[in-house]
């Protein structure tokens, strides 16, 4: 899963993979449309439901946050 997420992030901007900060959007590595598109893409690839409420910058802060976010949703939704 992590490899797939890295692949998706690399397509947006390679710098995201090595980014050490905690706000990809504010630091200009990803724009608003890309955040939305990434959310749609993650939902399709991992077959999880990403509600509009979940699309907040905390969940897209950096690569680790995105992986954590997807993992959490997969666990919750598989359990349910």
């Amino acid at each position: 899963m992590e490899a797939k997420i890295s692949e998706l992030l690399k397509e947006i901007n390679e710098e995201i993979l090595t980014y050490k900060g905690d706000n990809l959007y504010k630091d200009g590595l990803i724009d608003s449309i890309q955040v939305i598109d990434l959310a749609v893409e993650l939902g399709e690839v991992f077959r999880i439901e990403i509600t509009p409420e979940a699309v907040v910058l905390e969940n897209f802060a950096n690569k680790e946050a995105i992986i954590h976010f997807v993992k959490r949703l997969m666990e919750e939704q598989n359990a349910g």
Partner: protein
Amino acid sequence: MQTNVLEWLVESSRKFGNKLAICDDREEMTYQQYHHKAIGLARAILDSGLDAREPVVVYLEKSVKVLAAFMGIAYAGDFYSPVDIEMPKQRINRILEILEPKLVITSKELRAEFESFNYQGDYILYEDVKPVAADLDVEKRKQQIIDTDLLYVLFTSGSTGIPKGVSITHRGVIDCMDWFVGTFAICSYDSLGSQAPFYFDASVPDIFLNLKAGSTLYMIPQELFAQPVRLLEFIKQKQINTIIWVPSALITVSKLKAFKSVDLTNILKRVIFCGEVMPTKQLNTWRQYLPDVTYANLYGPTEAIYACTYYIIDRLFKDHESLPIGFPMKNTEILVLDEMDKLIKEPAKAGELCVRGTGIAAGYYNNPEKTREMFVQNPLNHAYEEKIYRTGDLVAYNEYGELLYLSRKDFQIKHLGHRIELGEIETAVSSIPGITRCCCLYDEVHGRITLFSDRDISKEKLSLQLKNMIPDYMIPGKIIFMENLPLNANGKIDRMKLKDYL
């Protein structure tokens, strides 16, 4: 008789002095504070020794301060030119070369950065300026403004890489806003939510509609545009009822159907968009959830202030149909000219959209060659000098006499003997489920139309979907999947960059 835009500020300050005029996430100003700060800034400009009709650069991040600075500069009889603080140094230096400003308004924090550019003039630091209730010298400068004086210069990127400074007069903005306030009945009870940066012409109605109507302008924090539910919550909390945004900002909301989480029924009244083509499928999502809102599609280059045509959405459109850009706004004429500069009146015949009226720019600052190229004598008028602006956009009338945008003139191609507008293919493609952004280019070497799409779709599937929408010869011969299409500085798809992938 109105000769400058400041009369709106004076009037709104007199009528609604204690009312909230402009707010950002750190600061807010009433109309009176806005007015007094502007006079204070104008006083500081006079004290710097600057004459009237000079450019003043504003180098500040988006905030209420920028707007106070704009009005202060106008009050001093000068004109403003905002520079994006994120802009690359090389481009800023080019702008400074063209503008040759003697004065910049910035902050203590940003001054050091500005000192690294090629600039030797004076500085006014915003924080140092005290508001002033009235000042006779400043008032005199304001009285001397005539409506053909410049109000601002906005820089747009030229295809050659040299920025062009579009020079706009007080008269142009007065005209455009008179039309705007009248058409959409905007009044002091309304609240606007500003999305566009102030160095971009899409913000012009936010600034001046607000001033004229005496409404309240909320600057929406930029990070909300990546968080659709929080964005709608902000609108709800501030009771914003009018938004004038670029389509991509509207798409971030409709794509995830964030309306399901926050209901804006009875809050949002007007959704106005301009700046690029609004995908009909996305608009239809907005209409599905918020059917009682007035939606309007506006069209216009920076050279025509903000808009020169408009279409208030009044009927249903299928996802693959493009939205008309409609009719000329008041006191403006649109001429659709064919290749021989003959006027086109009949439907379905493509021609270049040219604008006639007081709403066109006074030209490109310090660039007479480029000005002569785009602002030309009206070819239909042989009797006296009259300039029109050639947009380079191809349009046609539809069966209802509405204007339809087809594409840039440079995007009209000839393929298999057919004249094709690439924009028409893009409209059709973007109606396919799953595709939000796409772009078509003509690959001269292979003689085929190449589609760049943000969804991985097979050629067979694409052909099947497009079959009922466009003729066979318009169906792209090659598809390149690209999850994120490159965007230029204005947030539009960067066609120059895409050419490298052909």
